[in-house]
Every structure is written in C-alpha cells, then in structure tokens.
C-alpha cells in the first residue's frame, strides 16, 4: 500500500490533489483506518479553526465607509439643474454647519434597519434549527422565511450519533438565501443534559 506524507493528505483536504491521485488516495482511505484517522485529525483541527473565527461572521457588522457610486439618478438632477445647483449649495452649507452630511445619516439609518432585519433572520434560522434538531428525522428539511427581509433558509439534520459523553449529536446542513447571497453551512450540534442544542463545529462552504 502507498504511504502518504502529511503534505499529500493536506493537498487532498484542500482539493489540490489531481484527479487520479485523489482517487487512489480515496481507495486507500476506505481500507486503511489509520490513514483515515490521520486525515480526520487534520479535518477536525481545521473545523476547530473555522469555529474559533466564526464569531467574526456572526452578529451585527459595523458600518462601512461609503463610496461615491457612479449610478446616480442623474436625470432628475438635469431636469432641475438650476434649482438643484442652488439646493446643493444650501445643503452643503447646512451639512457643513451641522458637522456631518445627510449622506452619512442616511447610510447609518439604512444600516440600522438592515442589521435589525439581519438579527431577525438569524433568530428565525436559529429557532428553525433547534426545532429541526429536536423533532425531525435525518434527511427531512425544515424551512423558514422572513417576509420583511426576503431572506429564507432550509435546515436539514443529516446524521445522528452519540459522543463520548453519551450526548446525542446531529450533523446538519443549512442553506440560507439573504439578498443575492446564498450560503451553505454544515455543522454539528450536541444536546446538553439541559435539553439545549449547542453547535460544536461549523463548516462554511462559500
């Protein structure tokens, strides 16, 4: 049987191994448990790395500096050009007097509204996940939708097992569509003695 060094296992894990080489490795992985364990050790520690940095992708994101976008409603400016020019200079004066422009105010307000919706999306997704883990057999998807934000998602438990502490754990998949973005996440959650499901690992598949 071929022996594999760590670099090869890692290349396989990162999808960097060429087709035939990857296939040969998969054949060996299926019959060599020691080899599979070595790969699992890398995959497992990689999952922890993911989970350790996940807080950065959750919760509210701070507002970003706003660029000057080229797509503006220029037509209305042209039609009212003479007035607009006066209005603009007045607005500039007012803006300067107040110490900040209305653009910043509007951007901040939009951000607050957006993050409120994002928080609702997250709460719905969490509640649906808990319900699915508690009540659904593996393979049955449960969906949620936030009509206000247009975001939606599907949660599906995929496998159930017991960990070394004799707790029930389940692997699950989440697909979320928020705006134009679609994110697929798989994770593992375990049911504590208090009946609460706690996520132990997440894998983002961007």
């Amino acid at each position, binding site marked *: 049987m071929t022996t594999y060094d760590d670099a090869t296992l890692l290349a396989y894990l990162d999808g960097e191994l060429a087709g035939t080489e990857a296939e040969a490795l998969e054949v060996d992985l299926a019959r060599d448990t020691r080899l599979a364990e070595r790969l699992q050790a890398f995959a497992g520690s990689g999952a922890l790395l993911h989970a350790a940095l996940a807080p950065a992708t959750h919760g509210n994101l701070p507002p970003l500096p706003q660029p000057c976008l*080229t797509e503006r409603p220029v037509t209305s400016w042209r039609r009212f050009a003479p007035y607009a020019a006066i209005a603009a200079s007045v607005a500039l004066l007012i803006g300067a007097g107040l110490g900040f422009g209305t653009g910043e105010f509007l951007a901040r307000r939009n951000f607050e509204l957006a993050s409120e919706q994002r928080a609702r999306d997250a709460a719905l997704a969490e509640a649906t996940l808990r319900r699915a883990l508690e009540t659904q057999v593996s393979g049955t998807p449960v969906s949620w939708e936030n009509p206000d934000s247009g975001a939606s998602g599907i949660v599906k438990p995929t496998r159930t097992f017991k960990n070394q502490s004799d707790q029930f754990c389940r692997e699950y998949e989440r697909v979320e569509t928020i705006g134009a973005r679609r994110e697929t996440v798989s994770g593992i959650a375990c049911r504590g003695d208090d009946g609460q499901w706690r996520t132990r690992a997440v894998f983002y598949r961007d």
Partner: protein
Amino acid sequence: MNKETWTAMTALQPRLRRFAYGLTGSLDEADDLVQAAYERAISRIAQWQAGTRLDSWMYRIVQTIHINRQQANRVRGAHLTPVDPDTLAARDQARALEASITLAKVRGFIGRLPEEQRAALLLVAVEGLSYRDAAEVLDLPVGTLTSRVARARVALRDFVDGSAVQTATGGGHS
C-alpha cells in the same frame, strides 16, 4: 465605482472580518483593519482589474495594511503581546461554555503562529482560497505558500491533539 462592484465588495465584509480577526486576534482590531481596508479599496478601486478576483484583491489589502501596522508598532517599540486567552477564560464563570473556552485556546494558538504562517493558514484553511490564489494574495511562490500552510496545519493538529482541546468534541468526563 459602480453599484455592482460595491455590492460585491460589501458582501465580502464578513469574510474579511474573519480573516482580520485571525490576523489580529481581536474583533475590535479586526473591525478597525477592515474599515481601513475598505477606505483604501474605495480610493484605489481604479487599480482593481474587473474580471479578476475581487476577494483576493481585498484580502491582499487587509494583509498589507496589517503588515504595515505591525511594522509601525515594532518601530515604536509598542509591539503588543497577545493576551493569553487562558487567563481571560479563567475570569469567566465556571460554567462558561466548554466549547468557547476551547475555541479561545485555538485563537491563542493562531496568535502564537509565526506571522507568515498565520496569513497562509487563514487564507487556505478558513477562507477556502486555492493554493494558487493564496500565493497571489501573499505575493509568494506556490511552493513556499504550500509548505507554510502545511507547517501551520501540522502544528495546529499537534496542538489540538496534545491539549485539552479535545473536550470540545464532547470527550472528557461528564
């Protein structure tokens, strides 16, 4: 900048924040770094070539600003030593989630990695970039990048194997 580019750029914020969190070890510093990166990206958008990867370009900006700041700190002799997450965890309630204490340990490990291994590891193992794309972001030959990633991952595996981290996966006594 047109609207599509900006939309694509804002969609990257969570991933850039995660990368910056891995680099700096603190969410506040990460936000500050990402903010600076967006400012620079907005002012230099003309330098981005449409059709090339926007995410690689942004990761590169984050990395560049981070390195510049590190150097500035070193010059001023104000190089910050990372806070030991174990002492932070100890201050928490006794019943603080086992998992989150463990994850703090993993973050501590990331913080102790040599700078050049850290960025390589984050881009490949967390951000999911190919070896080639990550090498481009860091301006390295692919071979150098690959061996840095490998060294960091072997160290990570040994750290996870050899420490109490295992409790996170549900092991240990109940």
